[in-house]
């Protein structure tokens, strides 16, 4: 089935619209449901800090994140259900409801926001998409697509450029521009591997362009797609039980 898909995709890809290309890449990377384990490294000119997390997701509305490293935060979980976010702190046996304004804040000191990580905004629904042309990234033929946020969409960017592999529908590079049109962040994807049967970049570097030597690197260590979890999985009960 997968082999069939990979053959048929490039053929019908010729006639795909920009929004269809972005949707295909988004669906491929995300899956309807997923489990992933990843290492997140915050890199600065003079130091770096690593953390490891496990994450479960269902669509864009439901996600659960468990911190397994560093030791100080081990066992802490974050739950998101549509617009609501909770934080479980095991040492004090306490569940804290977080204000939505927390979404725009940096994820534990990294270069991306909580929203980048648990995706309150949707790359499909909150933007209008336009195919700009062809390009080459990592020696692979790519579509270059422009994304402009719709009015009132809950996003901070003025414009996004997305480079998506023509053959395997992988996002290979992203540029995020502010509302004045200045490039703020560049996201570079690399280390293409087969993750749970899907060919995808396993490494993502999030680089603020005006800060030399600064970046946040996400390396996927394990990914399982289309796992058997439903909406009920994303509960205050499970926040305490996931390990």
């Amino acid at each position, binding site marked *: 089935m997968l082999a069939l898909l990979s053959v048929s995709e490039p053929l019908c890809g010729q006639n795909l619209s920009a929004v269809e290309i972005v949707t295909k890449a988004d669906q491929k990377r995300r899956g309807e449901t997923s489990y992933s384990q990843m290492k997140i490294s*915050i890199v*600065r000119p003079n*130091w770096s*800090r*690593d953390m490891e997390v496990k994450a479960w997701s269902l669509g864009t509305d439901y996600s659960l994140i468990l911190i*397994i*490293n*560093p*030791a*100080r935060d*081990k066992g802490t979980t974050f739950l998101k*259900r549509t*617009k*609501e976010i*909770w934080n479980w702190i095991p*040492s*004090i*046996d*306490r569940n*804290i*409801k*977080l*204000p*939505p*304004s*927390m979404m*725009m*804040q*940096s994820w*534990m*000191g*990294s270069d991306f*926001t909580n929203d980048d990580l648990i995706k309150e905004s949707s790359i499909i629904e909150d933007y209008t998409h336009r195919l700009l042309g062809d390009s080459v990234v990592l020696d692979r033929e790519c579509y270059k697509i422009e994304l402009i946020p719709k009015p009132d969409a809950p996003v*901070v960017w003025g414009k996004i450029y997305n480079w998506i592999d023509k053959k395997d529908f992988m996002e290979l590079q992203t540029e995020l521009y502010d509302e004045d049109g200045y490039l703020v962040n560049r996201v570079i994807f690399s280390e293409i591997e087969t993750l749970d049967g899907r060919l995808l970049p396993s490494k993502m570097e999030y680089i603020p362009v005006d800060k030399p030597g600064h970046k946040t690197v996400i390396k996927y260590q394990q990914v399982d797609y289309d796992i058997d979890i439903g*909406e*009920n999985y*994303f*509960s*205050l*009960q499970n926040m305490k*039980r996931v*390990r």
Partner: protein
Amino acid sequence: MRSLTCLLVLSMWCACLPLIGQDSLEVEKKWFVDGYVKDLVTLNLIRGFDSAWVENQIHHRLNFKWYPSSEFSAYVEIRNRIFWGDFAKNIPIYDQLVDLNNDVLDLSVVWVDEGSWVLHSMIDRAYVEWNHEDWEVRLGRQRINWGVALVWNPNDLFNAFSFFDFDYEERPGSDGIRIKKYTGFASSVELASNITDDIDELTSAFLWKINKGQYDFQFLVGKALEDLAFGAGWAGNIGDGGFKGEITYLHPYTSNQNHPVLLASLSGDYSFASSFYLHGAFFLNTEGSQNPNFAFLSQRLGRLNVRNLSPYIVSSLLQTSYSFSPLINGGIALIYYPGSNALFLNPSMTVSLKENLDLDLIGQFFFDTPNEDYKPVNKFLFFRLKWSY
């Protein structure tokens, strides 16, 4: 009991000695050990630096978790502290202050109490948990945390928390049983009780939680020591800001000196994209006093219950924090007591020195008018190094 506690503490120490010094300990996948070592230097600036009382405290916490099956788990956590300095030397009952507890089982030991030294160990968690589908049952010494707001928690009948005692975030446990059934993703019914042979020491209550319109609501009814307790709490948002509150009404059912009291807490917080965080809160205690004596010290050293969360009628808090870099966080909290003009000032800074090694610099200054003269009556400085493993 003391010898049993000694034996327990010692055997736990021995069991984990080979494990200390490794990261993310995992033994045969069913045992987990973690914790931290802290060194806390306290300066009590009685009149100034010349007459300061100085204390050094080494604090080791060990947490054991055992997961024999997906349904059963067991937890034991121990806190070992060595105090050395002017507090132990000058306060004759310092060992008793350190060892304050009113639990059924005395699981604490003062190993040494000599001159300026006190060595103390305490098992503050020891419970088993059973999970089956929507059910969760916990038996043993545990934290039963029913608080919703961030500073004053009148719904937290079991393990009251003092904002001033920042170095004990885990809080003492209660010897008790808790039976909880989850009825939805953020709703549950729960029955909790501490275990005691004295009816006036019994706290036993029922808690109902629901989620409606993106708000978490909770309602409680029960008895808390010598009071009947009725309470409600909520956590939700107004716009993008957090909005939380708790109300508890306590009505004495015995002929003690206590009067009925209404305790209410209200808080709002907002987090800016720059990481600047703002939090404001109010607390009302209808049985509070306009000018309580030794308000700060009794809150810092005593063991709190829900009736004495704050000895003032009205307490108000403004708190901010900011990440100067991913390694440096600074903040300041101000608590103002409008009736008396008393003020608590609490600047703090945390620096991540290395992975798992943090340095905290904390000040606690309490201003009041003891003799018509507005001045800082208590001045504490803390330096803390924390290594987590």
